[in-house]
């Protein structure tokens, strides 16, 4: 691992040089010592040290505490304060700016090294945590589904942006709220959450909120002991699909009704010539043969017309297939013995 770089801010030249030497001997890279807050901020921006060792009392207007706050806010660099002060108010003020440590002069170089190492480690951990959080947030917010994480009291632990938008509140404002108080939960939902806790299995269902439809999935989340401590609820917007299904259903039903009507007419158009054929036949006179042939042709023509007309029954087929899982030629023959579907 590369040497950690440390910026030293100290208004007393001799002390500064002393610390610089000290730290170099301990194994850190200490390229500069500056003596005022403004320079400290500038240098921190230029060199991006791993850590700043900051005297509270500095030359100029700016105190070490103010400079440390800016360095932390602008560059996210951890700061350890150095001070001869040991009175409470100074320490409290310094801690308010969230420093990684506070060292009272004079100090042992071994103590300082420990403080620096702790600060560097803590900073690395915080960075890793922030990194992980932002990754999780990025993941949560990338998917268009609404997500909410509940604790065992059905209180919100976290939500993603989509969920927050749906509820018209900020993600922060939603934290800790009871799910029962939010418009996304009906009694059925609350019961399902209980079921997931009890049974430990995910559940899936569809539900309508306002004028939109959602596919809702609930997943139990366990702690290291295997106990369910949280439940993640994912709501996938299926309004479009529902509308499509509804439309398909209406169109399919409409088309079927139309076909039924056609069929009733057909009934007559086929059976009337059949009746004529049967009648002429039974009259038993060959003189009627041309008439019989005429009525046979009538039925034949009808079948030709039908063959053309029923092509538009595609809608019916897709409707039947979707809702009843059958439709001409769509389902393959399981053992392949019947050959091609006709």
């Amino acid at each position: 691992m590369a040497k950690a770089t440390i910026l030293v801010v100290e208004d007393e030249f001799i002390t500064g040089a002393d610390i610089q030497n000290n730290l170099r001997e301990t194994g850190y890279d200490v390229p500069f010592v500056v003596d005022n807050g403004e320079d400290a901020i500038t240098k921190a921006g230029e060199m991006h040290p791993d850590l700043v060792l900051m005297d509270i009392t500095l030359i100029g207007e700016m105190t070490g505490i103010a400079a440390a706050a800016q360095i932390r806010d602008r560059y996210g660099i951890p700061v350890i304060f150095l001070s001869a002060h040991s009175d409470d108010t100074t320490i409290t003020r310094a801690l308010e700016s969230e420093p990684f440590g506070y060292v009272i002069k004079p100090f042992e170089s071994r103590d300082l090294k420990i403080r620096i190492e702790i600060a560097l480690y803590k900073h690395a951990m915080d960075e890793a945590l922030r990194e992980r959080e932002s990754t999780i947030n990025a993941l949560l917010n990338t998917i268009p589904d609404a997500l909410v994480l509940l604790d065992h009291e059905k209180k919100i632990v976290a939500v993603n942006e989509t969920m927050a938008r749906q509820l018209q509140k900020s993600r922060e404002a939603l934290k800790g709220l009871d799910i029962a108080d939010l418009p996304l939960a009906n009694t059925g939902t609350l019961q399902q959450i209980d079921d997931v806790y009890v049974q430990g299995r995910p559940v899936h269902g569809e539900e309508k909120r306002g004028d939109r439809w959602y596919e809702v999935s609930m997943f139990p989340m366990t702690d290291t002991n295997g106990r369910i401590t949280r439940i993640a609820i994912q709501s996938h917007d299926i309004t479009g699909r529902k509308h499509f299904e509804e439309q398909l259903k209406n169109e399919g039903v409409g088309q079927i009704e139309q076909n039924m009507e056609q069929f009733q007419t057909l009934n007559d158009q086929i059976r009337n010539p059949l009746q004529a054929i049967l009648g002429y036949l039974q009259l038993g006179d060959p003189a009627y043969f041309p008439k019989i042939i005429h009525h046979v042709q009538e039925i034949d023509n009808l079948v030709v017309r039908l063959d053309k007309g029923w092509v538009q029954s595609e809608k019916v087929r897709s409707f039947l297939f979707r809702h009843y899982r059958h439709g001409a030629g769509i389902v393959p023959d399981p053992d392949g013995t019947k050959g091609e579907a006709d």
Partner: protein
Amino acid sequence: METVMIVDDTPAIREVFTLFLKRSGYLVHAVMGGRECLELLKTVQPDLILLDIMMEPEDGWETLDAIKSNPATRQLPVMMFSAKTPTRTEIREHGSQIEDYIFKPVELAVLSRSIASVIENCRVVQREKESLIQAGSDRDTISEYYNRLRSVTLIKKLMQRFRDAEKGDEDMIRVQEEQMVQFRKNLRPGTDRPQLSGGEIHGQ
């Protein structure tokens, strides 16, 4: 000589039936629609009307209603004749108005038997009615009884044609049968036929 009126919009059917029924000894009138049928009924009193259903502009059911709502023609026996299976509603509404329902295509011999049987049956019923009236039974009760009897017999026959018998069908029959029994209790047996077993409709 008995008279049959054929109402059908298919010329070939009118031709075949006319030829056949004339050969079988009937006097036949064949017309192409409901309007023509009603017009002809002003001058002709057939023993049976064979009525097609799917016709334009008036269909068979409308024509039937017109026949049955006119006091001059309401007593004429009507037999429906169609390619179409009637709906339950149609049977509920018209079951008591018709003697039989025959499906196209029908063999001429079967048609002939049905016609003969309906005409004969109507005669029997007519005699029974007269006998009941003479015995002092109420005219309305008599006609209600025979209406139910016709209706029940017809539904039982047609139920087999319904693709799926429903619970409602059984109920429909049961209700009408109960009413029928009720009406029968109120009839005084006539001299001609003390047991009212007549009125059966002979199917195809």
